[in-house]
């Protein structure tokens, strides 16, 4: 290869790298080395990674090169990926960005990791996040903050902030994150990358450290929509280890990468556009995106999701309730941090949890414990789960009138580091457009759709009906091919 091209191997997409690997123009060893060097060079500025598995990655790259030499190449063979640090990697640290799991080495792989390994993918390392995925800015990481590659004074979004930043800054070829209330889509939007939250049950949660089990879902963050389809092909599918994964055939998502939106009906949820605090730049950019879709042949209908304004309240009851139950396991007995020299068992529990969990995690455990405690259960969890039913009905009604819903991902572009840390409720309110998809279990995708006046990325959200990721990929692909936003890179 020519020298100039070689120097920018890290900037390739999955499908571009695959083509070069397949035609033997590059090797996975070269590609992986190039990405590792790029991480080494720029991650001091960004802070995307919590750990880089250099030696391990180079071994995997060499194995991939052997696979390729035997003509056993698959779409992800030899492709170096970053993995959010709450997906268990056998023999390699998985911290959830929490002091309580700082020394945890999982004795098994998450199902998605086994699938990636079988496909020949390379794991570069683990990327930063809000502790236990609780947050929208990656500022709640127990390790360090991550900066937005587009403006290093701003947050990359969260909780999959490390995933989004590593994709945007070319410190990986693609990434896996997780989304409980927008944690893939929101950072994707803030960093101008593609992020998909699949339908609940599409991707196995086995080996995903649990936050809110009825909402959590693993998904890809990538440089374009084609890569999203390629990763979805590998990670999707029923898994006997996760009884909430759904026994349903997985389509070949590449088939959705076809042009033409004629006859497509796009719903505009009117409540989303009336939301207080919707930034004028975001609003104008989304309007432009809608016009592009119209030019591509889509029709628009106004739809209503009347319970949207309760999404934040419903979510911030249900998610903390599930979290308080899930996080009870971190008691210093079987794994993770244990505080030194406790005087008795109770003291061990208390000091372990109080020193091991950061403030946001403790806050949510207290809210969840309170909402589930005797006398309050009906008023909080019971009530929220009833309103959740109404929200699911809203989506069912909307999807009778349209194929996909189009909306902003966040009310405003990425905010400044430190701007909202003292005001958790204000931080929660910025999740208004993403929470509903998790509560209803429907799939959602965020794709780059423009920039604010001060050059901050803005994302476009598409939501579909259960198990209709194909439709989202198709619409996203058409939009992407008609625009060039995904090609724009931050200058670092």
């Amino acid at each position, binding site marked *: 290869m020519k020298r100039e091209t070689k120097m920018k191997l890290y900037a390739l997409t999955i499908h571009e790298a695959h083509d070069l690997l397949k035609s033997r123009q590059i090797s996975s060893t070269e590609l992986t080395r190039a990405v590792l060097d790029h991480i080494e060079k720029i991650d001091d500025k960004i802070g995307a990674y919590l750990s880089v598995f250099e030696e391990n990655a180079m071994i995997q790259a060499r194995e991939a090169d052997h696979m390729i030499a035997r003509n056993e190449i698959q779409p992800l063979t030899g492709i170096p990926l970053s993995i959010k640090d709450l997906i268990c990697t056998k023999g390699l640290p998985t911290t959830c960005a929490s002091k309580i799991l700082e020394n945890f080495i999982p*004795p098994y792989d998450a199902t998605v990791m086994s699938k990636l390994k079988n496909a020949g993918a390379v794991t570069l390392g683990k990327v930063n996040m809000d502790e236990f995925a609780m947050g929208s800015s990656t500022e709640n990481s127990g390790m360090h903050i991550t900066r937005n590659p587009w403006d290093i004074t701003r947050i990359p979004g969260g909780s999959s902030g490390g995933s989004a930043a590593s994709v945007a800054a070319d410190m990986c070829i693609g990434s896996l994150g997780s989304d409980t209330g927008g944690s893939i889509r929101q950072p994707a939007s803030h960093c101008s990358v593609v992020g998909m939250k699949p339908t609940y049950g599409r991707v196995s949660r086995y080996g995903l450290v649990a936050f809110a089990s009825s909402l959590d879902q693993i998904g890809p963050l990538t440089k374009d929509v084609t890569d999203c389809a390629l990763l979805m092909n590998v990670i999707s599918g029923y898994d006997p280890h996760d009884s909430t994964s759904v026994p349903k055939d997985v389509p070949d998502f590449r088939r959705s990468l076809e042009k033409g939106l004629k006859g497509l009906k796009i719903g505009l949820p009117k409540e989303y556009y009336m939301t207080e605090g919707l930034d004028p730049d975001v609003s104008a950019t989304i309007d432009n995106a809608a016009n592009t879709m119209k030019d591509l042949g889509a029709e628009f209908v106004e739809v209503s999701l009347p319970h949207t304004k*309760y999404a934040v309240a419903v979510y*911030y009851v249900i998610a903390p309730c599930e979290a308080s139950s899930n996080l009870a396991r971190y008691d210093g007995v079987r794994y993770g941090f244990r505080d030194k020299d406790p005087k008795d068992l109770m003291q061990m529990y208390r000091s372990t949890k109080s020193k091991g969990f950061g403030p946001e995690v403790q806050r949510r455990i207290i809210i969840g414990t309170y909402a589930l405690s005797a006398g309050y259960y009906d008023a909080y969890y019971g009530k929220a789960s009833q309103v959740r039913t*109404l929200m699911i009905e809203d989506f069912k009604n909307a999807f009778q009138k349209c194929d996909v819903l189009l909306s902003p991902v966040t009310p405003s572009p990425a905010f400044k580091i430190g701007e909202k840390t003292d005001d958790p409720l204000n931080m*929660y309110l910025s999740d208004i457009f993403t929470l509903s998809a998790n*509560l209803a279990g429907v799939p959602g995708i965020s794709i780059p759709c423009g920039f604010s006046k001060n050059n901050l990325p803005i994302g476009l959200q598409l939501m579909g009906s259960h198990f209709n990721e194909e439709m989202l990929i198709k619409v996203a692909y058409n939009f992407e091919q008609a625009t060039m936003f995904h090609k724009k890179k931050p200058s670092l």
Partner: protein
Amino acid sequence: MKITKNEIIHVANLARLEIDEASLDKVTEQIGRILEYVDTLNQVDTKNIQGTSHAITLTNAFREDIIKDHLTNNQALSNAPEKENGAFVVPKIVGR
């Protein structure tokens, strides 16, 4: 209904957390504001509405009862803060 400092201490205790005196006011205020916001749910009429705990309809995920490989004792103990004779060690629980 406003959550009090005593309730926070009580709930923290249920969750086996310790809130230090210095941050108690701030924690109570922050959680109070969040719960107040959550009270907006009372505006919604939910009479005769079934609650949802799981958005996808799935019932009874059965599997065959067959013996398979699982974590070995060593693997299961590999992250133990303290272990002895193939078991997790915790501070003494029963008095003599």
